[in-house]
């Protein structure tokens, strides 16, 4: 019996141990992952350094990586490059981070009961390239003046020596916030942040050159060079950027173009290229040649060439429509007054340029008066088409198309042209007279 009793006690102890083990296992599994317990878990790895990457651990110990490797990174680590090095990291959850020269950041985090852990890269100085894949990530990049909240994207963020920061979004959407508000920054746009101010409205820019330095890190051939010197891959030729038409000069009048005319089938997602093509087609149908493309914040603009118009806003006949000076023989039907004026070199008359602006941003004109000599060149100085990276952009629900109409008048020969502001015709009359709305299906 005693033996039996001992056995029972022993069995009970064993049973209790098993349960204790299970309980401990469960407790470890379900205990909320908080910063305190997350200290020992690697948050990612340093994969490659062209030059040398220095990782300063929380206890002050420094570790270095040159060439390829798999150095674990932990919360609290400070990661830095000198002015001859660039490096590539991979954080958990498909996040690639590139450090340009002279860059330093600290890996920190925020834990929320409702959302778990958000990884934060606290950029002190330099430039980071970040690319995420596989959906939305809980990743943010802090600079001294702003925070970039990653929404599934590729971007470059820079903490400048003067204390300001720049965000360049290569693809996707990034929320860029300061204490004064948040700006959504989309593909191929740039925003700037400084202490005490809201981040600037995004401006379209060619962001390709900004990412060229990452080529050395991502190119597998370049990686064979290992540490020591920087073997930068030949940078891809930068895509030509569109000139900027922002803020536009004061117009004679303007008219919003109904979305239904540009996106008639609202059930399918439309790209900027689709909308631009539809607009170009409508212009071509009415005698306009290819327009000039410009960039505006979060959108684009398309500008028609200077045309001569009648006092009723209809275009003049084709033989004189595109000429500033009129050939007397071209006046059909014959009109003695006009013939004499033309013969005497009278170039008086009305002229028009239409700038079609597509943007979700409210248009506030610059206050500068448009000049006919400059307006004459707008079409030629603009791009001939949308760059590929912009053409793929989705034409969102918030996009608004606005026609800014610049009407000029040369009262008589030799007199300077002036902007008619306002025009005697409203925007709708101009667009109807040009038959553009009709061509769009309006």
């Amino acid at each position, binding site marked *: 019996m005693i033996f039996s009793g001992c056995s029972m006690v022993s069995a009970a102890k064993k049973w209790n141990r098993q349960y204790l083990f299970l309980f401990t296992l469960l407790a470890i599994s379900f205990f*909320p992952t*908080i*910063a*305190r317990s997350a200290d020992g878990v690697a948050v990612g790895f340093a994969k490659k350094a062209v030059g040398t990457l220095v990782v300063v651990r929380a206890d002050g110990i420094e570790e270095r990586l040159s060439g390829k490797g798999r150095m674990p990174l932990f*919360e609290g680590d400070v990661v830095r490059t000198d002015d001859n090095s660039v490096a590539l990291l991979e954080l958990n959850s498909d996040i690639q981070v590139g450090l340009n020269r002279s860059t330093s950041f600290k890996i*920190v*985090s*925020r*834990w*929320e*009961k*409702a959302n778990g852990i958000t990884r*934060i890269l606290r950029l002190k100085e330099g430039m980071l390239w970040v690319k995420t894949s596989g959906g939305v990530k809980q990743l*943010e990049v*802090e600079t*001294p*003046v*702003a*925070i970039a*909240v990653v929404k599934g994207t590729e971007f470059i963020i820079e903490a400048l020596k003067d204390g300001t920061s720049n965000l360049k979004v290569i693809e996707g959407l990034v929320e860029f*916030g*300061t*204490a004064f508000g948040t700006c959504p920054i989309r593909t191929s746009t740039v925003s700037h942040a400084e*202490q*005490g101010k809201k981040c600037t409205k995004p401006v379209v820019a060619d962001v390709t050159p900004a990412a060229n330095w990452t080529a050395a890190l991502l190119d597998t051939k370049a990686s064979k060079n290992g540490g020591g010197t920087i073997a930068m891959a030949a940078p891809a030729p930068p895509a030509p950027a569109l000139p900027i038409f922002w803020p536009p000069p004061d117009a004679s009048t303007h008219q919003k173009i109904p979305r239904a005319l540009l996106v008639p089938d609202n059930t399918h997602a439309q790209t900027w290229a689709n909308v631009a093509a539809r607009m170009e087609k409508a212009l071509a149908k009415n005698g306009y040649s290819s327009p000039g493309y410009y960039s505006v914040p979060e959108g684009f603009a398309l500008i028609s060439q200077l045309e001569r118009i009648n006092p009723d806003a209809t275009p003049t006949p084709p033989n004189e429509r595109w000429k500033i000076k009129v050939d007397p023989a071209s006046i059909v039907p014959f009109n003695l007054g006009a013939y004499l004026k033309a013969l005497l070199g009278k170039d008086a008359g009305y002229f028009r340029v239409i700038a079609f602006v597509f943007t979700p941003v409210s248009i506030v004109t610059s206050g500068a008066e448009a000049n006919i000599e400059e307006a004459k060149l707008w079409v030629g100085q603009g791009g001939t088409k949308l760059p590929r990276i912009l053409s793929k952009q989705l034409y969102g629900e918030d996009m608004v198309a606005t026609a800014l109409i610049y009407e000029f008048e040369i009262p008589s020969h030799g007199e300077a042209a002036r902007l008619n502001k306002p025009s005697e015709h409203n925007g709708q009359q101009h667009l109807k007279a040009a038959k553009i709305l009709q061509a769009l299906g309006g």
Partner: protein
Amino acid sequence: MVIRTILIGLSICLLASCAELAELEKKLAGTPAPLSPRVYVANESSNTVSVIDALTFQTIATIDAKNFSTHDLALSRDGTLLYATNLASGRLSVIDTRKMETIASIYTGSRCHVVALTNDNRFAWVANIGEDTISIVDTEDLRIVGTIDVGKGPTGLTFSRDGKFAYVSNQGDKNVAVVDTTTYKVIKTIPVGTNPHFLTLGPDGRIWGANSGGNDIYVIDPATQTKVATLEVGPNPQQIAFAYKGMMGPNAYVTVSGANQVAVVTIHNNKLNVVERIPVGNKPNGILANPEGTRIYVGNEVTNDLRVFDTGTNTIIAKTPVGHKPIRVVMSRN
């Protein structure tokens, strides 16, 4: 017939009232019950926050800050969120006071020391001693939206009455930095004395501070951004609260840690005088006055308790055990 009509009418009214009452009850059921006034104490060596009923002085709960060295506290105006700095972790804990649990933890900077909420409760400013910075935490999404370089070893933090200026005491530089809250730039530094720590907005709209490394307190006037008064109160002064003694007041109650007492200071324009000294316990640090100004609550670092004094008689009316090394005491309004 008439009586019948009246009865029917009354029944309808009664039914209608019942329906309204039921509706009201339904609405009330969905409304969380208001909190009773509570005192929160940050226990630095326990990594916890003690929650004490301000009326019965009983401990209601002890909240794990989920970080190390819980040091300073700031309570949102509605009393629902409590922000706690944790020196060793460099993290700010966010505590849901209704659920009495930590719901978030944000790394702000090395050795984050004090926290203060902007007057609109939109941002929590956290002073990081180890980095000589202030982190600006957006209280809505808990993101750090900016960092301000302020000076060596920022340890005290408060805002002016109009919220246009923040005052940051820098123990290393022995000064108080004045930060313009519209530009986030330091516009002035005011020399104040040895090892300045705690700062608070006084009932007179002036900024009161203690030189913990010395033996004095000082007053800054936001109108001129200058130090306008100073007074020796005893060794190692820590924190300041404002209360009344009958008709007298408001008086400043200063925990004088090195003397194990609270010094009661009268305020007459720029003239300060110690009029009383109350023995309060061993190494008093955190001090709080109730909204009526009739009681002070003092946390004693060595005896690990919160003592409540009646300011009319200077007598102790309660002594509640708290966690180890209680540093900061705050109180909800309701």
